[in-house]
């Protein structure tokens, strides 16, 4: 067994040192009737060559973004991933280290997290960002609970423009703390602000909006913030940090907590996980924040160094009183994002936004020009938009898959009211050729 080094001879010597005659002796405390009397019923061991062959075959059966033109979004985006990222995160010293509990032997990880926190604070326009939460959905849920804890209130007003998958996660997290989620409908692409006004009361802990929202539309975040703050509630904004190189950051629009799915920042699509939960807030709220934080300090010789800090918020110190139960986070995805942002930099990230927006608008025009197809909303959108199709979106998606086009996300799975809606995302990676081919295929499919 290439992963188990000790040879039978060594095992015997070790048993002698222990004073046991066999490993069996060491298992004496396990009640006999608890013992498994047969080998586990899992497939027999495979040789590396055979196993690799099998897994390549399984992988080959998937319609991945290298083989198809991917217009899928909905919380996971096919942004280009610069080559150095995988090379650097794969270095064993990063890859096989644990949480930096011994800071002197973990400065590499600690420094990258400190850089990550800085980058996320810059992008979201907030004072402080944590070391990561599992994903955008759980980050939104944690923000909801944090707002409830901060305000001591039990209701949140959530826009219908929030990704329904995030909302489902929030509902799960709301169960225990008994937080009620009041829904605020979406009008012509954006949150219905009058409905929001009506929904917000002195019981409201937070107003939660997504920007751009699930349908791709840009929300009037400022007004939502004013409504929230007027009632003493917090404003929680979910935003994709990739977009924030170009878009006005939540922090500049009144957000108290900004969260988002950071997958677009160099993390592979990976069938939806692991992803990167970005979590940032105003400094006054930092001691209520979930997750790990890295801080700068000095060593006994006065040299700059970094440590995990403000840990009294965390489960390993505070146990049932912790701000969250999170322990393992997604540090390596945060490292991917850190390197991604370092590579794209001040100019590049903005350019990714410009290219995505331009191509998305070109695509929207081309697709909406197909007879019977139209844009569902008039609100301004960014890199994603919602189409209204004359035929079943499911059928269209199936049909275009044959042309190696991943056409979009039929929204009826999330809401029957969206029966004929198709959500289409366009990143800087999509070419004009791919977009034109999509339009042509769509025309055939709806004809």
């Amino acid at each position, binding site marked *: 067994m290439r*992963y188990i080094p*000790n040879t039978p001879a*060594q095992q015997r010597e070790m048993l002698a040192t*222990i004073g046991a005659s066999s490993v069996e002796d060491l298992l004496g405390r396990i009640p006999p009737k608890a013992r*498994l009397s047969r*080998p*586990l019923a*899992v497939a*027999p061991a495979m040789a*590396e060559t055979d*196993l690799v062959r099998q897994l390549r075959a399984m*992988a080959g*059966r998937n319609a*991945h973004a290298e083989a198809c033109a991917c217009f899928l979004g909905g919380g996971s985006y096919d942004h280009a991933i610069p080559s150095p990222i995988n090379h*650097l995160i794969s270095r*064993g010293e990063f890859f*096989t*280290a644990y*949480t930096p509990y011994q800071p*002197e*032997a*973990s*400065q590499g990880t600690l*420094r990258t997290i*400190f850089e990550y926190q800085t980058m996320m604070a810059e*992008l979201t326009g907030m004072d402080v960002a944590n070391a990561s939460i599992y994903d955008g959905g759980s980050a939104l849920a944690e923000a909801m609970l944090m707002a409830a804890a901060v305000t001591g209130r039990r209701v949140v007003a959530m826009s219908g423009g929030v990704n329904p998958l995030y909302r489902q996660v929030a509902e799960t997290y709301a*169960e225990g703390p008994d937080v009620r989620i009041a829904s605020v409908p979406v009008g012509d692409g954006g949150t219905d602000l009058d409905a929001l006004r009506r929904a917000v009361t002195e019981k409201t802990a937070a107003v939660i909006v997504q920007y751009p929202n699930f349908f791709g539309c840009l929300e009037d975040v400022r007004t939502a913030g004013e409504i929230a703050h007027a009632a003493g509630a917090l404003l929680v904004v979910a935003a994709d940090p990739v977009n924030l190189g*170009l*878009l*006005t950051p939540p922090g500049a629009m009144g957000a108290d907590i900004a969260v988002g*799915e950071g997958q677009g920042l160099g993390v*592979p699509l*990976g*069938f*939806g*996980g*692991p*992803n990167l939960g970005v979590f940032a807030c105003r400094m006054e709220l*930092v001691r209520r924040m979930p997750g790990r934080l890295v801080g*700068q*300090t*000095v060593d006994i*010789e006065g040299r700059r160094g970094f440590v995990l800090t*403000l840990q*009294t918020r965390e*489960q390993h110190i505070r146990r049932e*009183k912790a701000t969250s*139960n999170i*322990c*393992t*986070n*997604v540090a390596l995805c945060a490292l991917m994002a850190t390197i991604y942002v*370092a590579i794209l*930099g001040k100019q590049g990230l*903005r350019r990714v936004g410009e*290219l995505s927006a*331009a*191509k998305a608008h070109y695509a929207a025009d081309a697709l909406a020009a197909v007879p019977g197809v139209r844009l569902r909303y008039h609100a*301004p959108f960014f890199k994603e938009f919602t189409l209204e199709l004359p035929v079943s979106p499911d059928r269209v998606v199936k049909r275009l*898959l044959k042309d190696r086009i991943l056409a979009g996300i039929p929204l009826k799975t999330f809401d029957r009211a969206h029966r004929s809606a198709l959500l289409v995302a366009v990143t800087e990676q999509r070419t004009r050729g791919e977009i034109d081919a999509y339009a042509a295929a769509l025309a055939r499919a709806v004809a």
Partner: protein
Amino acid sequence: MATARPPYDKLVFELSAPGRIAHSLPECDVPVGDAAALLPREFLRAAPAELPEVSELDVVRHYSRLSQMNYGVDTHFYPLGSCTMKYNPKVNEDMARLDGFARLHPLTPEAGAQGALQLMWELAQDLAEVAGMDHVSLQPAAGAQGELAGVLMIRAYHLARGERRTKVLVPDSAHGTNPASTALAGYEVVQLRSNEAGEVDLAGLERHLDADVAAFMITQPNTLGMFESRIHQITDLCHARGVQVYMDGANFNAILGITRPGDLGFDVCHFNLHKTFTTPHGGGGPGAGPVGVKAHLAPFLPVPVVVRDETSGVFRLDWKRPQSIGKLQAFWGNFGMLVRAYTYIRTMGPDGLRAVADNAILNANYVLARLQSHYDRSATGYCMHECVVSARRQKRHGVTAMDIAKRLLDLGFYAPSTYFPLIVEEALMIEPTETESRETLDDFCDAMLQIAREAEEDPKLIHDAPVTTPVRRLDQTLAARQPRLRWTPPR
């Protein structure tokens, strides 16, 4: 004997030069106006985000240099107790990076994701078999989220039976996530005192098992690395009171193929694929925390559930589960980690998995046998996959568990877990794992014994440690008193 290296003390922002670039982006190939023309002004950033402006070499050299400031399993023995820092096979990485997995969008039509769904389905089956459970959900992102899912399923189960139970019992030896997750699930956490052996105190348990108790959550083997031998009495006792029993599976490495939570009477257990099943820890994550349940809890599993149509053999996501606790993360789970765990299980097979547990236990007991002359044991009898010793004796010379940890760094080893479990004074929790050789264990034990001698003869040496690391001991108080949580340009 130790050699020095030139220090490196840069942050990527400090490498920045205005206008320098490391990226390469395509020209705009579509005939539309620029963003300013497409988007209302108020949505466009007034000022650009202050991000680094560096070259590709700047990036590669910076992160390569930073990585060298870490210890990792690939470079050092990493006996961090409870974390199972075993070798992460490289072939797992190759498989996880195949385009068909790494470049697959989560919302790809199911017809275009059969390979991925099959892998998930098979992995869930295998984990259920390994745990002796009836169903497994792969969705939880880590152990703590597995705990939350498990406790929420227990909660839903009781509610479905019209019972409003309010408390969950957790031993004082438990990992912090246990009470944290339980509280997050809306339960009052009642801490159970462990007996002198560090095990569950049956009498105490019985006393606490009233009608308000929804569940009992324990770690098996426990956090002292000892197998709770009266486990059947425990689970029977709980079941007799309608109390569900949850097993924290962080220590699964100790029991693979030897015994199964399901056979021990547990109703729920979670796995840490990043511990037992070799997915990398990555400096803190990501991991994966699948949760397994007995049949009576199946209706409450998170949605969606990967199912296989028996006749057609087609795999799909089943969303129609009215009693489900809902979703834990936006998509289906940390799939990249699932690919690695699947690769590992197929590599090992039944005998290989059993050999993992045998060797993990052998290695831990070997270390314990070699150290017990100089370090106090926290429990009697053979341990399982890890052992917890106390630096009580060294403390008398003013040398704490933390001091010993720092000294180990200088001697070329990462440190054991310290001060966990809380019930052991000056705890040093040592988990060698099965992937370490006897030679490595001997080097480590020699170092531990040397430190024990140094504690008596030359404690200063230990208090000064570490001296071979890029920085020496760091001021934690300063960090917490005046939090500097982001870089700011020098003014």
